[in-house]
């Protein structure tokens, strides 16, 4: 018996030149001839192709991991770029808006200096131009800058750094990687400090440059005022460091945004209010040493050379008090971060 090769049925063509078979499109599609199969030919059901949506396949990676500096840079850029774009640390919209508003508001003296240069109005320049008092005021002025601007920015930032890692357990993500506690806390500290520096130090620098550009200041003026600018810059660094260390210490002992933020504001503004109340009621000024702001102001006034508020006391007391405050904050911060868990927080 000769075996004939199985003939595969050609698919129905419906072109213009297709032969007339009497089978319409619908008949071909819905198989109206089903049930009329030739039973003399053995038929085997063919497995239908069900498609291929997902196949789990392990893909190896043969790359090389970069060293410590790259890991630290990752932490830094994660926090910094999060202010500007998606895909990094998700800072809340109110925080980002407030930082923008404070940045613009902090440039008010620079803007008015530019304006005075543009319109040649000496009275505006007298009020807002670069001077010993105005440089001090840009960094350490109490109202509005150290009431409404800088402490609130610091409070918004520190409330979302270490405490959120503890809240969400993301500290495990860091510590199960080759990241030391020192690098972790160091990069968080620097990230928060840099964002504050954009507001305090960058605007200070722009203010100083605005004076030079708008009024065409020469080298003689720069030589005269540059030490003042440097003193204001150092004072700004002192403000940033103190707010950051106290804020992060509070952040490290909590598991949410609210406590560190409100705690920082309470310490900065509450101690100041307390010192003022005691001074008013009992004529005793010494409690200013409990106030981080008053101590920074005292040291800043000495650095820049303006009239000290508490001139009956040596600035070294304020400086010592600041060192003690920062030391306590940093000790708390390091102790808390050292005890952060990987397996359970």
């Amino acid at each position, binding site marked *: 018996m000769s075996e004939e090769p199985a003939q595969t049925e050609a698919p129905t063509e419906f072109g213009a030149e297709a032969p007339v078979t009497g089978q319409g499109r619908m008949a071909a599609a819905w198989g109206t001839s089903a049930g009329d199969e030739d039973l003399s030919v053995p038929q085997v059901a063919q497995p239908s192709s069900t498609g291929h949506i*997902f196949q*789990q*396949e*392990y*893909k*190896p*990676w*043969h*790359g090389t*991991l*970069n*060293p*410590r500096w*790259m*890991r630290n840079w*990752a*932490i830094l850029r*994660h926090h910094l770029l999060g202010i500007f774009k*998606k*895909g*990094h*640390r*998700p800072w809340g919209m109110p925080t980002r808006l407030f930082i923008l508003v404070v940045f613009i508001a902090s440039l008010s003296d620079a803007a008015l200096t530019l304006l005075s240069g543009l319109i040649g109005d000496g009275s505006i320049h007298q009020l807002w131009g670069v001077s010993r008092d105005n440089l001090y005021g840009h960094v350490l002025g109490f109202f509005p800058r150290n009431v409404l601007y800088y402490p609130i920015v610091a409070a918004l930032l520190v409330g979302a750094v270490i405490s*959120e890692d503890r809240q*969400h*357990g*993301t*500290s*495990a*993500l*860091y*510590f*199960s*990687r*080759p*990241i*030391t506690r020192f690098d972790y806390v160091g990069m968080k500290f620097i990230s928060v400090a840099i964002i504050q520096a954009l507001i305090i130090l960058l605007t200070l620098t722009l203010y100083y440059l605005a004076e030079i550009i708008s009024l065409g200041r020469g080298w003689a003026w720069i030589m005269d005022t540059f030490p003042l600018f440097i003193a204001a810059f150092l004072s700004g660094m002192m403000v940033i460091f103190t707010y950051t260390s106290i804020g992060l210490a509070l952040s490290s002992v909590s598991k949410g945004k609210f406590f560190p933020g409100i705690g920082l504001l309470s310490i900065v503004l509450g101690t100041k209010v307390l010192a003022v109340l005691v001074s008013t009621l009992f004529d005793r000024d010494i409690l200013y040493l409990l106030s981080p702001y008053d101590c920074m102001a005292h040291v800043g006034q000495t650095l820049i050379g303006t009239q000290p508020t508490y001139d009956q006391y040596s600035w070294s007391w304020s400086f010592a008090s600041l060192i003690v405050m920062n030391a306590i904050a940093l000790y708390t911060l390091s102790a808390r971060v050292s005890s952060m868990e*990987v*397996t*359970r*927080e």
Partner: protein
Amino acid sequence: MDELIIQTTNLTKSYGPHVALDNLNLAVKKGATGLLGPNGAGKSTFLKTILGLIQATQGEGTVLGHDIRTEGDAIRARIGYMPEYDALNPDMDAIHQVRYSGELLGMNPTVALARAHESLQYVGIGEQRYRNIGSFSTGMKQATKLACALIHDPELIIADEPSNGLDAKAREYMIQTLTTTVQSGKRSVLMASHLMDDVERVCDNIVLLHKGRLAAQGAIEDLKAIDREIEIHVWGGATKLEQAMLADGLSVRREGRVMRIAHIGEDTTMRILACAANTGAQIRRMHEYEASLEDLFLVIMENLGYEVKTSEDLLASPAQARKVDAPAHMGGSGA
């Protein structure tokens, strides 16, 4: 000889008077290993010690050839750790969270992003990768944590309760993913879990800790021999047969007509049949009872004097069932 990925010698970790790890001598081979033990057995301390996060009080150990006392950074760069608890920022997209976890290992941002896509695809949430983690189910969060652990293709994955809190489908997928990682990816997995079924499906070996000490270690198949039994179904004279077997020195557990006799030697079967012949009982069915890892765990822990919950208990009420305490004579409440 199989390559050892974790080895410890007399590893001891004390917190003041409390000894969390007590002279632990471990040798974990390449492949999948389950880390078992009731709460307080020292599993977390062991994991932290081998990650190089806490210093051992005494003893030494290596992970992937690195000294746990001095090379913690190198160890953590070569392993992938999947924590039990939430370790993800709910406000971030999965893709960026996984990419960041790669960057924290030292990966270039571009490379980390490419690997994040691959890792998320592998764990089965490739289509959801641009969604906020806060909107994820528990299973998807677990998968994202696994993707974070796998992003740099580590040689050893330490998965702490990977199937904890997952529904049946997600649990199945997690187990399948870990199995594929071991079998297809040729990676090693150290899996700490309270769910014995999961450990048995993924792992070939187990390490069982008990009060900081090593209670059992080895291949699951070998350890199961501890709990080897012969099951018989008896018709007529079951009580007589039971008494005869007990009189013959066999260990019998009976539930109605079904009896399980401890396999104590090659002649156990013949002794059972002899007892049946003497008592006139009919044995209609006889087969070796395949113990599960859970049975093995329960036997070992019972020998140690612990009341241990079963997987059913754990799945029914994890919070309550996992409260395992030491027996009264060992200082616990006996609960």
